[in-house]
């Protein structure tokens, strides 16, 4: 692995890590909302959450550009008020990767929450915990394996994200050029095949490591449950 390869891997891991960690609280909140409550328009919320799974990634990237670009409805406000810029930055790559992995994380957490008896939270409430505390101290610890599984899935998705990222934040070496984008660039470059193959192998190794980590976490959670 060359110094350049290491930088690409580092950027990819950094983007995927941010994409996963930053979306986690929202994913837990949305999963709890979908699992624990009934409200008008729930199907619409569910549909919007899962939209990135079925939309062409280019479309998601374009929508992100319109919303979070420097002149976008949200991006303009974020830049003006908080100095946060997504366009053509690694933060934008993390946002695109986070959006693409979000439905996977929500689904994994929601399935886990659906398996927890909601009456446990009711018991916690009769013991003095408000709704939020009951959720945080009873249901959430019980779905840690589901949360971990969702995080690994979202991380792996973020690591391989391509379409939305290149559309939203382009393909800038050292800033937004992650592993997937680097491989694409090399396949378009004469004589770049060997380098591309090296990055492909690195990409496979990283994804494999993520899956093994997921399995280890699940095993650990099962062991803790049996104690």
């Amino acid at each position: 692995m060359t110094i350049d390869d290491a930088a690409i891997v580092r950027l990819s891991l950094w983007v995927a890590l941010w994409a996963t960690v930053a979306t986690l609280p929202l994913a837990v909140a949305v999963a709890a909302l979908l699992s624990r409550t009934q409200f008008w328009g729930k199907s619409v919320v569910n549909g919007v959450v899962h939209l990135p799974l079925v939309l062409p990634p280019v479309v998601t990237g374009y929508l992100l550009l319109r919303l979070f670009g420097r002149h976008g409805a949200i991006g303009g406000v974020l830049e003006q008020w908080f100095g946060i810029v997504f366009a053509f930055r690694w933060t934008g790559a993390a946002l695109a990767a986070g959006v693409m992995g979000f439905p996977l994380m929500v689904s994994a957490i929601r399935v886990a929450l659906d398996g927890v008896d909601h009456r446990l939270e009711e018991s916690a409430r009769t013991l003095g915990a408000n709704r939020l505390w009951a959720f945080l101290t009873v249901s959430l610890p019980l779905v840690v394996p589901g949360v971990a599984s969702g995080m690994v899935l979202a991380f792996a998705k973020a690591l391989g994200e391509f379409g939305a990222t290149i559309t939203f934040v382009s393909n800038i070496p050292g800033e937004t050029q992650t592993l997937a984008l680097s491989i694409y660039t090399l396949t378009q470059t004469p004589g770049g095949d060997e380098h591309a193959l090296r990055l492909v192998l690195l990409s496979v190794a990283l994804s494999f490591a993520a899956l093994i980590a997921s399995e280890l976490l699940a095993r650990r959670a099962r062991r803790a449950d049996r104690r």
Partner: protein
Amino acid sequence: MTLDVVIKHPLGRISLDVSFSADAGLTAIVGPSGAGKTSVLDAMAGILRPAEARIICAGRVLDDSARGVSVPAHQRRIGYVRQEPLLFPHLTVRQNLLYGHWFTPSSERRIREQDVVTLLDLDMLLSRRSGRLSGGERQRVALGRALLTSPQLLLLDEPLASVDAGRKHDILPYLDRLRAELRIPVLYVTHLFNEIADRAGLAIVMDEGAIVAQGPPERVRGDLERTLGLPGN
């Protein structure tokens, strides 16, 4: 300490429509399965929000649908032990016991952990996970957990259903002490009228969501046998 309860709520094929008053003693709610007994307790605990309700406990209005008042479950200070103990499986027995204790302001803690542990014979179980307990052990932990919130009212839904006979004789006198020393009113749902008849000051017989008889246990015993065909002794 008195308790005034009016609850009206549609429950599938039947309608819950109950109204009763109880004092600081033990009130038994008896009736066949599906009579709506558990729903009454759910409404009182704040888990079920009835269509119409007026629940006053020791002068404190917990529900008054006419005025839009409904105190959230976590602020009611009502201990609720369900037929299924519903212990928190990721916590040890001790952590389960102390769960509600943590939420109880120290100035309002009237029941000590050690007293409950001793009384319910939980010493040897404290470090175990609830998944490794027998039915009776789980029920004892659930009872202890509710007691450690120092509740102003205790709701017990068939609390001794899976407790062995010997342990019942240990636990029931403790309920007497709770009533005598702490003046905690107890609402006790059971299908075994005889289990609680000697201790109850008031017995309420429910069927199809409504109260069909209420009064001193001796008087109600006859109603149980006559109207519902349930054994009164």
